[in-house]
């Protein structure tokens, strides 16, 4: 019916239907509310228009009425709040075994890298029906990764990782927008999400690649000399990284943090920030020595040390989803 004049974008992710259902509920609630007030105002305005000799009847107010129209709206608001919160939690908690894609935003382009090593610019190919988790950071200002058809948006910040996830449900090509104003070509920082049938996607994936991201990370790990201290056995000057990812880490000052993406990132760029219990703060910073893409590869490598398989991430999903999103930096601390 609304083919030429749609009221919502394509519904192409597992989240989209949930968001639209709540939206339609809200349209009905607020439509009824508007109608109620509109009818009351029009009726009163017509019925009680000024007539000669007819005086207004003074009415002081009514506490039962005041309570009615405070408590009923409050009840309705709480329903909306709870429903909205449920939808939000679902859309913010990446499934544990999601495929990972690293996103680096910069003025004014999106750089994406699959865990398997495929790189893309302003375009992301994904298969239908698979959970995809985006691990995102920015090289410069704040951007926002927004796909209307997925009802999905997350700001992308410099200096830390933020995460979002989706499961595409319908093949097609969808808009990718930058939704946080980022300078001159903000409205040009757009791209597309190409959702493919799994078979097509496999064919696409078999195209040229430099190997999995974790393998690139392993190479960088060796080149930068990390391997001399972070040895596979526990004899090195730095803590061994085997099986660390996704696990709690006891720090020198007694705190315990979860080793998630942001923790690994910070430990590379600002090693003195969180010293592992029993080790000396001897590691130099790698700030300025590694690019965002190299950082992503290193994170993928550290992650791979905790996995048996290649794509499946152990506890990291939960670890990234929640504590990571805390407002201040040093968000890895679980208090």
């Amino acid at each position, binding site marked *: 019916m609304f083919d030429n004049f749609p*009221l919502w974008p394509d519904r192409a992710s597992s989240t989209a239907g949930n968001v639209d259902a*709540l939206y339609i509920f809200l349209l009905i609630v607020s439509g009824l509310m508007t109608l109620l007030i509109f009818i009351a*105002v029009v009726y009163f305005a017509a019925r009680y228009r000024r007539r000669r000799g007819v005086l207004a009847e003074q009415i002081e107010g009514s506490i039962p009425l005041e309570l009615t129209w*405070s408590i009923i709206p409050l009840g309705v608001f709480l329903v*909306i709040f709870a429903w909205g919160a449920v939808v939000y939690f679902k*859309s913010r908690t990446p499934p544990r075994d999601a495929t990972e894609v690293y996103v680096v935003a910069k003025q004014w382009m999106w750089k994406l890298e699959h865990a398997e090593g495929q790189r893309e610019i302003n375009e992301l190919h994904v298969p239908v029906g698979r959970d995809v988790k985006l691990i995102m950071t920015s090289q410069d200002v*704040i951007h926002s990764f927004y796909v209307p058809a997925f009802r999905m948006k997350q700001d992308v910040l410099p200096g830390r990782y933020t995460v979002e996830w989706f499961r595409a449900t319908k093949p097609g090509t969808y808009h990718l927008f930058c939704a946080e104003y980022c300078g001159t070509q903000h409205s040009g920082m757009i791209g597309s999400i190409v959702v493919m049938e799994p078979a097509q996607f496999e064919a696409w994936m078999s195209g040229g690649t430099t190997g999995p991201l974790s393998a690139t990370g392993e190479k960088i790990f060796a080149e930068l000399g990390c391997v001399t201290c972070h040895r596979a056995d526990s004899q090195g000057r730095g803590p061994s990284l085997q099986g660390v990812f996704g696990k709690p880490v006891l720090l020198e000052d007694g705190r315990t943090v979860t080793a998630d993406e942001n923790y690994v990132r910070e430990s590379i760029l600002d090693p003195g920030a969180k010293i592992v219990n029993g080790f000396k703060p001897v590691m130099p910073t790698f700030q300025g020595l590694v690019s965002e893409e190299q950082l992503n590869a290193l994170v993928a490598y550290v992650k791979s040390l905790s996995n048996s398989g290649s794509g499946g991430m152990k506890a990291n999903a939960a670890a990234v989803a929640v504590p990571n999103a*805390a*407002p201040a930096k040093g968000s890895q601390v679980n208090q």
Partner: protein
Amino acid sequence: MPMPNGPQGERENYLNKEYGVGSWLFTTDHKRIALLYLMSITFFFFIGGFFALLIRLELLTPVGDLVQADTYNKLFTMHGMVMVFFFLIPSIPAVLGNFLVPMMIGAKDLAFPRVNLLSWYLYIIGGALMLHCMLTGGVDTGWTFYTPFSTAFTNTKIVEAGLAIFVAGFSSILTGLNFVVTIHRMRAPGMTWSRLPLFIWAHYATSIIQILGTPVIAITIVLVAVERTLHLGIFDPKLGGDPLLFQHLFWFYSHPAVYIMILPSMGVVTEIFACFSRKRIFGYSFVAFSSIAIAVFGFLVWAHHMFVAGISVYAALVFSLLSYAVAVPSAVKVFNWTATLYKGSIRYDAPMLYAFGFLGLFTIGGLTGLFLAALGIDVHVTDTYFVVAHFHYIMVGGALMGYLGGLHFWWPKISGRLYPEGWARLAALIVFLGFNLTFFPQFILGYMGMPRRYYQYPPEFQVLNVLSTAGATVLGVGYLLPMIYFLWSMRYGKPAPDNPWNAAGLEWQTASPPTTFNFEEEPVVTWEAYNYDELDAPQTGGAI
């Protein structure tokens, strides 16, 4: 209670007491300062409106054709900064509040008349700095100044714009301070808190926000300037700062600032509903305390602007819940205004048409706020045109309709002249229709996914953008009309009687225009607010 007065051209009043530029620039009369503000904010309103017009023209087509991308970014930035800091925030408090707060409580002037003049000068200095900033290149960060774009990337005039807003902010603080002290200390004998017009309650609540909130934006601006000039790491992660800290600080002021705009407007329409329904406001104390509740809760919801910014999901939960809490007192007000009409004796003069317009637009603005406060929906619609439409319904549909309604309602008192009623009703209608045509399509655009601050956009969004631009031109005509007939009425309008609406309230018991000290002798209040039963009672002379 027809007042025994006709044309009164010869009576001495605040306008004809002294002439000459000096008598205005050095005045400490709250009514003259109100007029100084009226002229200055009208100037900025039309500058901001001009920017809006260019924005809408650019968006007529999906490609960027009228202006360059950088120019477009500056246009929406300057539109926001001018409209928020130099029109909406001062609008009702500094013009109508300045004029009416002392008169409504039976005082000769505000508590600190010279501070009041100082606040206008601060506004003018801030405004001049803003004009200078615009003429020398402007700013392209959006009125929100998000870091690290504003501190480390843009090469536009951030520090200059920040300074302008910093200075203008003190003007706002001083106005708020003056109102609070005046309302506490200067009420006429018998004018108890429960007899105050609700316009005063609304301004009291607004003043609290101005005093407590504005210093925070001032500090934030200083921090931005410090990071930008001295490269001290506060917000920029490259320098060890935190960009989200900026957003927390910015919205800690800028969300309550919305209530600085809307609360006084609620106060205005409350007076109008009472007068044109000839009734005491339904649930006086609930309307009064809902203003205070909005001011208090308004300080606890700022992070609902940041649900996708990277805050914790638990923080988002708390701020979503509190946002619904602030919606309750707003809903209470809407229901009480509606109930006030019940069994009234209603007339549809222009101020009442604006009040009806306010009610409709504020209701839509408020209800769409429920969408944005719902976490699941906000993820999709935040930073899209849905948000743009929502806050224009509140800040323009709500605040500006109230301001225009109030200007019409008190124009006879302010100018001593009547405005042409027919033209005024026509303008109210045009504004209402033009407004809806401009901003309603933007809700749909937003849900369709069009991000805000886009200079070019995918072609499927064009139809709705064309509708919106068409509406904006209608709206522009609606805003120009009052400007023209108000000016016309100052010379050609019929002289106004002291109380043309036969309205309750001390301000109507003085001459139109009032004398310099408002009242011949200090009034003594022995009646409740909105005593329309006494005013309309047959055969009794009236309240004085």
